[in-house]
């Protein structure tokens, strides 16, 4: 069989089970475009800026468990994609990013639209390839998907010069398996350590489970819920672990960290055994790891051995997949006696959940709005949240029934929510999908309303409009700073008119009394809808 490099690429994508490619056109990927034209089995979503191809592929990957794929052109296309790749890297999202490149014989001469993209993304890709010979493509693609999706997942970049895309290869064979001698992530936990963990749990009086995004990545949601239920150990999550448990679940104490819930932070501070599962001890989650490490023993379960001991020394390190390790643990009789501890925390949690919210004429308080939104969502809804006050309010106040909460946790990339929610919707048309944005973040990705329209999607977007870059505004109005600067979004457009220009209807909300009926109308809208809620710029995330 004779194939061009570009045809090998599309064939390999089909063999990997790829159904959707997010991309943007350009001269150095014309051969690939031609191969896509001849591969109707591969869906294609045209983004409006390459960064969003990364975010859409990320949303797609996170809900399907498959590897997200994006294809962009060389030079500016590739550099625009960088933020998407870095965002995925920080949250360990499996992506395969393909970039076009100038002809291989001209590499290094700074010709039109040449950038060293493999060099540029080196620090935040799991691996990368610069392909010099199309005959290597079947192997490289097999490896790329394997590396992106196994162990600790992450983005892999494949840079393909245009002549390699055109290169004819005879007798193409697609490998069934990979052989990479330097890459063998361990999945099973060490049996001796498993016994130690079980023993530590049995003797703890105030244990707490701290679950992170790694649990989703390992597809270990069920195992975690079983494990918690069987031991009745209270659970806290990181931002990346939100939605592992429904907000009102009796064991769920909420999110830890700088912007976390009181009960969760208390659980962390006062526990006598910290059981970390799929979490990397990030600074926003565990602010002073040295303190925590001195105060209590900790079990650290992670698939990436380098995370154990990186930010905090571990008493019982356990390397492997969260799914397998939880199964191994549940083969043992686990006994935890912490009823007293649990009820203390539950009381604190209840107080927090039953709190009242501030009111201000002409505005709606995001906390109450998000609480009521969550209560109205379907059980399996996906909610994609941007960055800023809107993110923190969402983490704190959304009443999740389960479903899936997605945000850019590691990089905190504004503009993530809308494209990620489009990625989710592209994969799962029947799923209820809502994005939450601030007016700053919204304007970073509002061009993607076109993708919603073009693909006939019914995404819902909640815009918390406060006229400022709220979270930065909030920090600038407190010492050591002397006042807001560069955070007033003067020149903000009429967002309803923007939506209307894309054929998307919108609703406005500026009275607490209208919140419930407006939310109902918003969610009942059969197509896409933008809900613009007026938020007081003076409100802080601590209100």
């Amino acid at each position, binding site marked *: 069989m004779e194939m061009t490099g570009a045809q090998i690429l599309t064939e390999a994508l089909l063999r990997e089970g790829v159904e959707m490619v997010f991309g943007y056109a350009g001269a150095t990927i014309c051969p690939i475009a031609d191969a896509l034209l001849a591969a109707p089995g591969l869906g294609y979503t045209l983004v409006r800026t390459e960064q969003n191809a990364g975010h859409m592929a990320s949303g797609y990957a996170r809900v399907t468990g498959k590897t997200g794929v994006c294809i962009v052109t060389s030079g500016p296309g590739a550099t625009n994609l960088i933020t998407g790749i870095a965002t995925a890297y920080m949250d360990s999202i499996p992506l395969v990013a393909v970039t076009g490149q100038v002809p291989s014989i001209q590499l290094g001469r700074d010709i039109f639209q040449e950038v060293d993209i*493999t*060099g540029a993304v*080196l*620090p935040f890709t799991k691996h990368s390839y610069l392909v010099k010979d199309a005959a290597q493509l079947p192997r490289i693609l097999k490896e790329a998907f394997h590396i992106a999706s196994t162990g600790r997942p992450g983005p892999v970049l494949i840079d393909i010069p245009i002549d390699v895309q055109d290169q004819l290869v005879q007798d193409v064979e697609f490998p069934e398996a990979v052989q*990479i001698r*330097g890459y063998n992530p361990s999945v099973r936990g060490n049996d001796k350590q498993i016994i130690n963990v079980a023993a530590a749990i049995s003797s703890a009086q105030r244990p707490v489970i701290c679950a992170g995004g790694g649990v989703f990545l390992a597809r270990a949601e069920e195992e975690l819920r079983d494990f918690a239920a069987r031991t009745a150990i209270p659970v806290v999550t990181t931002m990346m672990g939100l939605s592992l448990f429904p907000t009102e679940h009796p064991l769920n104490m909420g999110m830890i960290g700088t912007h976390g819930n009181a009960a969760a932070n208390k659980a962390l501070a006062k526990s006598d055994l910290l059981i970390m599962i799929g979490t990397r001890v990030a600074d926003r989650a565990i602010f002073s790891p040295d303190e925590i490490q001195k105060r209590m023993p900790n079990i650290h379960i992670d698939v*990436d051995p*380098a995370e154990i*001991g*990186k930010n905090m020394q571990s008493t019982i390190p356990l390397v492997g997949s969260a799914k397998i390790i939880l199964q191994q643990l549940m083969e043992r009789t686990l006994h935890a006696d912490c009823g007293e501890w649990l009820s203390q925390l539950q009381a604190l949690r209840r107080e927090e959940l039953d709190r009242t919210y501030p009111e201000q004429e002409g505005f709606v308080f995001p906390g109450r709005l998000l609480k009521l939104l969550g209560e109205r969502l379907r059980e399996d809804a996906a909610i994609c949240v941007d960055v800023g006050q809107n993110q923190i309010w969402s983490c704190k106040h959304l009443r999740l029934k389960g479903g899936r909460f997605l945000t850019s946790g590691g990089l905190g990339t504004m503009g993530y929510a809308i494209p990620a929610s489009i990625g989710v919707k592209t994969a799962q048309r029947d799923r209820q999908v809502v994005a939450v944005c601030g007016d700053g973040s919204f304007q970073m990705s509002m061009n993607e309303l076109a993708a919603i329209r073009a693909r006939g999607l019914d995404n819902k977007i909640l815009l918390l409009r406060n006229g400022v870059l709220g979270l930065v505004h909030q920090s600038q109005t407190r010492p050591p700073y002397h006042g807001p600067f560069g955070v007033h979004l003067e020149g903000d457009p009429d967002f309803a008119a923007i939506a209307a220009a894309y054929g998307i209807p919108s609703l406005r909300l500026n009275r607490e009394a209208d919140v419930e009926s407006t939310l109902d109308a918003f969610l009942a809208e059969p197509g896409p809808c933008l809900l613009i809620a007026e938020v007081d710029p003076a409100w802080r995330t601590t209100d």
Partner: protein
Amino acid sequence: MKQTISVLVENQAGVLNRITSLFSRRAFNIDSLAVGVTDDPSLSRITIIVDSGNSVVEQVEKQLNKLVEVIKVRRLDESALVGRELMIIKVSANKNNREHIMTICNICGAKAADISPTSMTLEISDTPERVRTFEDMMRPFNILEVARTGVIALQKGSGKI
């Protein structure tokens, strides 16, 4: 404390770049790094000397292990390794002090590699300490230039990594 890490990697373009990029990104300080192909032409061995505490060196090992092209990483036992560095050193020399220089060379196990009416170029391959001693002994003769390879090392005995 100085520690020696021996790393087997795929002998491919770009691998060294990944490794040095890793060191700078993770803010690991290295004393020296030496690389060369092994008996198996598909493999290179990189010897890295790190001067850091145990927990940092452990992170270095773990981060290196994450690179797809890194096949094995071992911290060598400092009390049982053969470590050598090659130094080429050029000093000012003339008919009056050449013999004196050669005496020091003989004592230190160094050799003359080149000679000119006003200089001598000497080579020594030895442990880093002895190479340093030799360099110190050459200082009074006015050192013109020095090139050194960085340490390469293998564990003693018949085992291999």
